[in-house]
C-alpha cells in the first residue's frame, strides 16, 4: 500500500489550480484525498502530479438564495450533514451525507470529490439526481453547469473535463408539503451503499402532487424510477409498492456480496421504504 512516486503541488486559488492542471499532463486534483489516495496506494492511479486544492476556502460553504442552496465543492460531508440550511431546505441531502463512512471520512471527504469520483456505491449521487441539482464546473475557458442527471456518465465516469474544476452544486429547495428520505443498505465491508434509495413526495390536501425516487448502487449511475403513478393518489402502501417495483436496470452491477438481481430486488424494497418514509415526513 505504497503509492508510486509523484509530485505534490498545493494550489492557492482556483485559477492557480486551473493553471497547474494545464501545465501538468495527467495531474490529479486532490480534495479530501479519501478516494484518490486509496487508489494511489493500490497503484490503480499513478498520477505524476497531485494538485492539492484542499485549502481553497472559496470552494467551501453552504448558502441559500432564491429558492436554491449552493454547496461549494470542498464542503465536507460532516458540514453538509450538520447544515441548518440544508436541514431546512433539502433535508435528504444532509441525511445522505450523514450516512457516509465514519466521522473521520465525513470530516475529510468533500462533496466535490465524492461526485467527481462517482463510485456507484456513493450516497450523494442519487440524492443530487433526485433533487434536480446542477453541477458547476470551471475551466480556463469559462464556467458551465450540467444537470446532475447528465453529470454521471458511467462507472467512475463523469462530465468533468480534464481541464476543469468542479466549483459547486446548486440544489433547488424542496417546497412545502414535501417529505424526503434517504435509506441505505450498507455493504458490511466497505460501508458504501449496496443500494441507496432517495425519495421525495409532495402532498397537498392528502393527495400526492409530485413524487421522485432515485436509487444508487443498482446501476453504474443512479437509476431514476418513474413513480409518476403516485401523483394524485393518497400514497397508500400498495400504491407506493407498485410504483417502486417499477425499478428497472438494464445491466445491474454486482459483486461477491450482492448480485445484480439481488440489488434490483433490494432497490425496489428500499425504494418502497424510502417513499413511505418520505410520505410520513411530508
Amino acid at each position, binding site marked *: *500500500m*505504497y*503509492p*508510486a*512516486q509523484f509530485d505534490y503541488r498545493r494550489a492557492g486559488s482556483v485559477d492557480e489550480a486551473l493553471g497547474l492542471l494545464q501545465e501538468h499532463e495527467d495531474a490529479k486534483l486532490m480534495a479530501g484525498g479519501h478516494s484518490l489516495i486509496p487508489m494511489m496506494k*493500490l*497503484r490503480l492511479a499513478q498520477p505524476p502530479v497531485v494538485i492539492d486544492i484542499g485549502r481553497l476556502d472559496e470552494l467551501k460553504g453552504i448558502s441559500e438564495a432564491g429558492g436554491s442552496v449552493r454547496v461549494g465543492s470542498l464542503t465536507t460531508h460532516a458540514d453538509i450533514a450538520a447544515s441548518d440550511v440544508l436541514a431546512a431546505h433539502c433535508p435528504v441531502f444532509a441525511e445522505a451525507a450523514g450516512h457516509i463512512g465514519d466521522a473521520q471520512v465525513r470530516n475529510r471527504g468533500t462533496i466535490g470529490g465524492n461526485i467527481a469520483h462517482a463510485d456507484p456505491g456513493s450516497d450523494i449521487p442519487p440524492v443530487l439526481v433526485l433533487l434536480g441539482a446542477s453541477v458547476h464546473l470551471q475551466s480556463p475557458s469559462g464556467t458551465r453547469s450540467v444537470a446532475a442527471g447528465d453529470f454521471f456518465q458511467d462507472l467512475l465516469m463523469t462530465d468533468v473535463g480534464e481541464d476543469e474544476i468542479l466549483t459547486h452544486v446548486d440544489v433547488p429547495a424542496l417546497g412545502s408539503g414535501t417529505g424526503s428520505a434517504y435509506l441505505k*443498505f450498507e*455493504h*458490511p*465491508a*466497505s460501508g458504501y451503499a449496496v443500494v441507496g434509495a432517495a425519495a421525495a413526495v409532495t402532498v397537498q390536501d392528502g393527495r400526492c402532487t409530485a413524487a421522485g425516487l432515485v436509487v444508487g448502487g443498482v446501476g453504474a449511475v443512479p437509476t431514476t424510477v418513474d413513480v409518476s403513478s403516485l401523483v394524485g393518489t393518497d400514497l397508500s402502501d400498495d400504491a407506493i409498492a407498485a410504483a417502486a417495483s417499477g425499478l428497472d436496470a438494464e445491466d445491474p452491477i454486482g*459483486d*461477491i*456480496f*450482492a*448480485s445484480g438481481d*439481488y440489488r434490483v*430486488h*433490494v432497490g425496489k*424494497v*428500499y425504494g418502497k421504504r424510502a417513499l413511505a418514509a418520505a410520505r410520513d415526513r411530508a
Partner: protein
Amino acid sequence: MARVLGTSIKRREDPALITGRGKYTDDLQAAGMAHAAIVRSPYAHARIRGIDTSAAEALPGVLAVLTARDVAAAGIPGVVPVGWLLPDLKTPAHPMIAADTVRHVGDAVAVVVAEDRYLARDAAERVAVDYEPLDAVADVVAALEDGAPAVHEDAPGNVAFDWEIGDRESVDAAFASAAHTVELDLRNNRLIPHAIEPRAVLASYDSSTGEMTIHMTSQNPHVHRLLMTLASLGMPEHKVRIVAPEVGGGFGSKIHHYADEAIVGLCSMKLDRPVKWTATRTETNLTDAHGRDHSTHCELALDADGRITGLRVDTAAAMGAYLSTFAPAVPTYLYGTLMSGQYDIPAIHCHVTGVFTHTAPVDAYRGAGRPEATYVVERLMHLAGEATGLGPVEVRRRNFVPPDAFPYQTQVALAYDSGNYGPAMDRALEMIGYDDLKTEQASRRGNGGKLIGIGFSSYIEACGLAPSAVVGSLGAQAGQWESADVRVHPTASVTVYTGSSSHGQGHETTFSQIVADKLGIDPEAVEVIHGDTDLVQFGMGTYGSRSAAVGGSAIVKSVEKIIEKGKKIAAHLLEASAEDLEYEDGSFRVAGSPDRALALGDVALQAYLAHNYPDDLEPGLSATSFYDPANFTYPFGTHVCVVEVDTETGSIELLRYAAVDDVGNVINPMIVDGQLHGGLAQGIGQALWENAVYDDSGQLVSGSLMDYAVPKIHNLIPFELDRTTTPCPHNPLGVKGVGEAGAIASPAAVVNAVVDALAPFGISHIDMPLTPEKVWRAVNS
C-alpha cells in the same frame, strides 16, 4: 492483603498502548536500516520461465534483488518447515522463495532491498518475471475431483493426508437401528485472521559476531528461532535472537514460521545491514495463513427417546498450497477429537482428508479446529431438536454427559477431566428469558412481520495445549509445556520470565496477579518479561488458550519452589525448623508463634547477602520451572443468540447474545470478559460477514477490507455474559483458558438462530456467511 486473584485490576499494558507509545516491530529503527519489498506471484499456479531483475537493480537506492538462486547460493536449507506430522503425511518442499513453480497468489518469487520502502516497492514493480500460467484449483472439493490440477507432483490427487478417528463399524450399526437421523452438508467458510498489526520483521545481522537479531511479530519467539535453525536459515540457535516487541494481535496467524522472516533474515546477512519488512494489508490477506475452509458431510443418529446413538463426519479440509507450521493438526487432533461435544455419544467416526489447493496456506486461527467441530455438532443438535420434536434445549439436556460421569472418556480420544453442563444451560435460558421469547416468536410468525429466531450452542473445547507426551504421540514435533523463571530481588520485588509470549492478551497483568496472590505482595511489585529469546529461557508461546493454564501453572510452580527455599532461609534466621514454617501474607512464620516471623524482604535480602545463611543452601532466591500439564483443559458453556430476520431483504439483525461460559477459576474477570467479547465478535463475524473468496483461477477476490467484512463495533450488540465455575482439577490455579471460547461457540449459535427464525419456510441450513442475499434466496426458493 486483599485478594488479587479474581479481581479486575486494570491492564498495566494499556496506558502505553492507548496513548500510542507501544513499540511495535514497524516502529523500530536501526542504524543503517534498509527496507525490503517482496515480489509476489500474481498467478495461483504458474511456471517461472525466468526473472529479469536488471531494471529493478538499476534504480538508484536499490541495494539488492534476491531470487531463489541466491537462496541456493547462500548454502542454507531455504525451506519453510511443517511442525506437525501425521502418518503418511505428504510434505512437499516449501521453498522460502519459489524457484520454478508458484502455487498461490502471493507466493514469494524475489525480494528487493532498497534505502526506503517506497523505493523498494517501486523496484519490486520492475522485477520482470516471465510466468507460464498453469491451471489452478482453489476450491477444496474441486481439488479432490479427478483430473484436478495438481498442486504438488508428489501429492497425488492433491491429498495431503487421509485421517480418521473413532469406530466406523459401531457407527454404522448405530445408524442401522436409529429411530431418527439428521444429516447436513456444510461449508465452514475460509477466514482471514486480520490481526490489526500486519506481520513485520526487522532482521539485523552482524558479520563481525555472526549474530542475528530478529524483531518480529511472533506469538512464540523460541519456536520461530528453533525453526529458523532447523530449516529456513539454518543458523546456529545460539547466534539467533528473536524478539517479539509489542504484537498487535495474532489469532494464530503469528504462530507460524513464514517464508518472509527467513527472506528478510537472508537479506540482512547478504547486505550486513538491518533490513525491515512490514506486510501491506494486501500482502497480509494473500499470505497470512487463513483459517477453517472445510467441506463436510455429517450425520447424527438418535434413538426413539432422542438419545444420540451415533455420529458420522466426513470432512475435506483445505491445507492451501503448502503445509503451514501446525496445519495438519488443526483439522485432525483439534477437530475430530472434539466431536463428542458436551454429549455422551457411544459411537463416533470422523474421517478427514487434507487437501492441497492453490491458495494461501490454512492453519490455526482462533479456535483452530474446535470452532469447526462445534459447528458440526451444534448444527446437528439443532436439527436433532427438530427431528425428535424435543426442541433445542431438551435434546441437548437429554444428551449432556451427566455431572457424575467425570472423568468422562469420549469415543474420540479425549478424556474430559471435569464438567457440569446443565447449570450453564439453565443460566443461559434464565438470562435470555426463553419462554417469553418463544411466545413472541410464535406471535410474530402469525403477523407477517420480521421473524425472530433463537439459536443455541453448547460447546466444549480442549485447550491449555497440552500434555507433551500426548501431542508428541499425535505428531507434534515440539513439546507443549511452558516455562517460568521467577526471581525475587533482594528488596522483595519480583521479575517473572515467562515463555508465554503475549500479543495483546494482558499476560503482564494476569501473571503479576498470580505471583502477587501467591506471594502476598502488591501486583505492582511484579514485573513480567516475555518475548525475547535472549532474556527468557526456552518457552512454547501463546496459542490454544494455554497461557494461564500452562504458563500460569509454571509460574505457580516456581513460586512454590521459592517459598520452600525461603522457608529454609527463614528457619535458619529464626532458629526454627523449616517444617514448622508457614508462608502467609508475605511473611514466613513459625506455626503457633505469630511473633516469630520474617517478611519476604528480610529473607530475600539475606538470600543475596548470604552473610547469615544455611551452610547447605545456595544463595539467591529464584526458581525456574517447566510445567507440563497432565491433560488438556475443558472449558464449556452455553451461548444463546437471538436474531431478527427481514425476510423481504434477507437482512439479519442481532437482537441479543447471552453467553454462559465455564472457564474454571478466573484470574482477572475484566480480561476474561474482554477475551470473550473479541472471540464472539470473530465468531459472529464468521457466521454473518467474513469470507475469503477465491475465484476459479485462484485469485483472492475478497483480498481487501473493501470486500472482506470484518465485524465493526456498530455491527455488534452488547453481549450478556455470565459464568459458572468448575475449576480444572489438574492444574494448581484451577483455570481452563478463555482465549478461543467466544469464537468456538458463536458461529453455531448465530446460524441456529437464523435457521430457527426461518423454520416456517422449511429452511434447515444456509452456509456461512449468512449474507442477506443468501438468506433472501433461501426464503424465495
